[in-house]
């Protein structure tokens, strides 16, 4: 007995010898049953110290994290006692006085917040170039962007710095960087995850979701972070087991591929991957049809009225009176103008200006009200498609990760969101899963489902992911 017990202990400690390489590929599922949580944190901190000089996925790193499963939190979510910067100068020095609901839930489930990840300032962008802390680099090619706005979270997971991360998605900010970095990104149905403690960009579009190495990990994280929250009245009371269909066989599904996937502005390489994906689905026995969702062409314009409108007022609270940057001046008005003038970056200012214009009394009907109508029209059109099909497939992004600094025209930049925006406008669940590479750069395929079909979307994505392994 005595000998046996010693032997067992030695065995265990050997198992606990986790190498950095093993950690980098470790899934959340495995990490949750891995006993030596302190080893997980140690590996994570070590890898961040080594790799993040190049990748720069993190804005701040916790020097003495709790023991637990290391997770990255996008720096627009509050972790109590830690700075929340939103990658903006205007919030410099702001220490969050409370945990976001998702953070609190992760805390209760033994997660360790090893750092806050980089983003486009206030989540406005698709490349993480618009960060006051500089761009995050794509682990697959350091010359290229990680995507955005949750670029830090995607790069941190892709590089193995953390086991998983949380992002926020307003028009594709989880899915697009996941796609650029070759990881899984899931945007849940609007209302399933509490936004309390997420610094609002566009409240009616924002949704927190996981960025992980596997679809199953996303489902596991969703089971932890989702749920009705008394602090967020836009959350819904809906019990969903997000892992319900993980590992299950998906028999013949009806899948619509938006013809827009082959439209103007979509890179040939990406089109090719979509074709391959269709073939794959057909080979698995699914029924695939090309569906023209013409209304999608209005999605970007609609989004770039609604999101800046909401943002322009959500960001009013950053006025230098209560927290963050204050540029003092002789008059109140001057102080407001200087604080906001110096505190916000160009892209944020551009959106505040657009939103202030579209909400002004003279243009409200022509822009905001009209956009709301088009939003409903798009949502209705998608519902129509879902009456006949289980899922809608598109590429996540029309292009692969581009070189840092190579896109300067905002309109070109905004068009990159064409496939991701509809899910936000309609509040639908959508996932981006990695599907091979083009010129050595990852391509993501997006699977979108009807409202509250989150578990099915995850299950279907998981069934494909398993086939690909």
């Amino acid at each position, binding site marked *: 007995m005595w000998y046996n017990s010693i032997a067992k202990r030695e065995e265990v400690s050997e198992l606990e010898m986790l190498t950095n390489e093993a950690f980098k590929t470790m899934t959340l599922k495995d990490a949750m049953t891995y006993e030596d949580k302190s080893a997980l944190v140690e590996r994570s901190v070590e890898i961040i110290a080594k790799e993040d000089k190049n990748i720069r996925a993190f804005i701040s790193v916790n020097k003495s994290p709790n023991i637990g499963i290391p997770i990255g939190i996008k720096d627009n979510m*509050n972790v109590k006692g830690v700075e*929340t910067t939103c990658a903006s100068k205007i919030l410099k020095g702001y220490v969050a006085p409370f945990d976001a609901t998702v953070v609190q839930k992760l805390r209760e489930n033994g997660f360790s917040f090893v750092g806050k990840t980089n983003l486009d300032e206030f989540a406005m962008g698709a490349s993480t170039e618009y960060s006051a802390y500089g761009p995050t680099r794509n682990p697959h090619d350091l010359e290229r962007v990680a995507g955005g706005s949750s670029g830090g979270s995607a790069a941190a997971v892709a590089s193995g710095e953390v086991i998983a991360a949380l992002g926020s998605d307003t028009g594709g900010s989880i899915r697009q960087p996941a796609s650029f970095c070759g990881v899984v990104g899931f945007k849940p149905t609007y209302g399933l995850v509490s936004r309390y403690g997420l610094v*609002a960009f566009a409240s009616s579009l924002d949704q927190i979701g996981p960025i992980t190495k596997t679809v199953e990990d996303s489902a596991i994280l969703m089971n932890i972070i989702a749920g009705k929250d008394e602090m*967020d009245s836009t959350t819904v009371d809906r019990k969903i087991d997000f892992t319900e269909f993980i590992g299950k066989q998906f028999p013949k599904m009806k899948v619509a591929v938006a013809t827009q996937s082959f439209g103007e502005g979509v890179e040939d390489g990406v089109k090719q991957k979509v074709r391959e994906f269709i073939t794959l689905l057909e080979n698995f026995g699914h029924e695939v049809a090309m569906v023209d969702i013409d209304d999608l062409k209005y999605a970007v314009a609609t989004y770039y009225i609604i999101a800046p409108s909401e943002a322009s*007022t959500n960001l*009013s*609270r950053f006025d230098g009176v209560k927290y963050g940057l204050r540029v003092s001046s002789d008059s109140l008005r001057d102080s407001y103008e200087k604080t906001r003038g110096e505190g916000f970056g160009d892209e944020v200012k551009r959106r505040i200006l657009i939103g202030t214009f579209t909400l002004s009394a*003279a243009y*409200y009907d022509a822009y905001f009200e009209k956009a709301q109508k088009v939003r409903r029209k798009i949502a209705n059109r998608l519902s129509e498609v879902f009456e006949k099909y289980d899922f809608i497939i598109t590429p996540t992004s029309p292009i692969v990760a581009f070189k840092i600094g190579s896109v300067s025209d905002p309109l070109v930049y905004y068009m990159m969101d064409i496939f991701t925006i509809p899910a936000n406008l309609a509040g639908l669940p959508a996932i981006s899963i990695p599907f091979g590479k083009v010129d050595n750069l990852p391509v993501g395929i997006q699977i979108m489902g009807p409202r509250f079909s989150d578990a099915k979307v995850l299950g279907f994505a998981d069934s494909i992911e398993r086939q690909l392994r």
Partner: protein
Amino acid sequence: MDNRYRPVIGLEIHVQLNTKTKAFCDCSAEVFDLEPNSSICPVCTGQPGALPVPSHEMFELGIKIASALNCHINLYSRFDRKNYFYPDLPKGYQITQFFHPLSERGWLEVDGKKIRITRIHLEEDAGKLLHSGDNITKSDYSLVDMNRCGVPLAEIVTEPDIESPEQARIFMEKLRTILRYIGVSTGDMEKGAMRCDANISVVDTITGKQSNKVEVKNMNSFKFVEKALEYEFDRIVQLMENGQEVERETRGWNLTTKSTVSMRSKEESHDYRYFPEPDIPPVVLDSEYVEKIKNSLPELPDDRLRRFVNDYKLSEKDAWTLVEDKKIADFFEEVVKQTKEPKETANWFLTELFRMISEHGEDKIHINPTHFVELFQLMRDGKISRNMAKDIFQESALSGKMPSEIVKEKGLEQVDDTKLIEDIAKKVIEAHPKEVEGFKNGKEGLFGFFVGQVMKETKGKANPKTVNEILNKFLRGV
């Protein structure tokens, strides 16, 4: 001149609702006189990431006001953001109901006239600035107290149906009475629990011309509502008489100069960029819930007034004086239930009790219905005179002692002993032969002199009726 020009007045009234919590967070809404920034949280101070969650109680009280003011209640209502920058507004916008208010189309009767209510909506209050100097421009710095941020308000907007500054004041006073009756607000204007802005324009009844509208603010008492509007009416009439243009502007009542001062012109007015609050889903009320709240309302002042006039046979004026303060009216009815003498009770309330309250303050008065019952009984039995009763009432009210006890203690009991009074009367007659002669020669007025002398001898305790009888017997032989 006064008849030629007619004011057209509409009011916008903000009522602080006395809910337990603030409108969108769990902080206490009782913030008057609190240590600055002691009832605040991430939500009401606009911390990044905080979200508003509307309070149920705010809707309950809002529905009560709307029902009491005969308004149509919208089962579907929604919050909107009103955007502007000011240091007392932490989010940079106020959450209000612009597009879909809680209720619309009501009325309140004042002086027999129905003043129409346009709408009543719910919103949050802003904080308070404490300036180091006299005002914001003369200060080196200003401090922000956010206690009041997020305290729920009901904004009541009337149609321009009010015809005089006095009527505006009466409207406000009546509104306060209603708010107190239904228990939704203290209605204290001095403490800011009820605030009033007014729109006034003037019609020239001869030419039919109507002046531009002027908004008047900062009228923080009922008196100032009337005074400011009187001032503004005169000012506008003056301009019209001189053929000058009345500027569309916002003016503030200045307490020290007793005049209104221009605050800003309409051209400088804000574009508030109203739009639906995306953090709060539309509120859809259950019609049964609304009915339940409506049915829970107490009898409203106007109904009670009618009842007092009809059942107690009181004049409308007296009845309103009793009805106006719910506590008084409730107490009055409690007393009447026991005395069964509404008119007599009302008299005592309107004279003695009100005088005592104004002299000593409400909390010093310990009177209860049995005091009245005893007092009335003692008078009826001829044990005390009306004058004595007043003194006894006063003492009962202050000490809480029963009237009979006071009578006993002080030996105040009326002397009704015929033999004793006869003896005294005899002595008085003997002592005043001149007056007796004068009386017998027809100076009838001297009768009162003898009564007075007897009363004096008995230290006022003799029953006046008995004294009269005896003196009649002795002096007139009847």
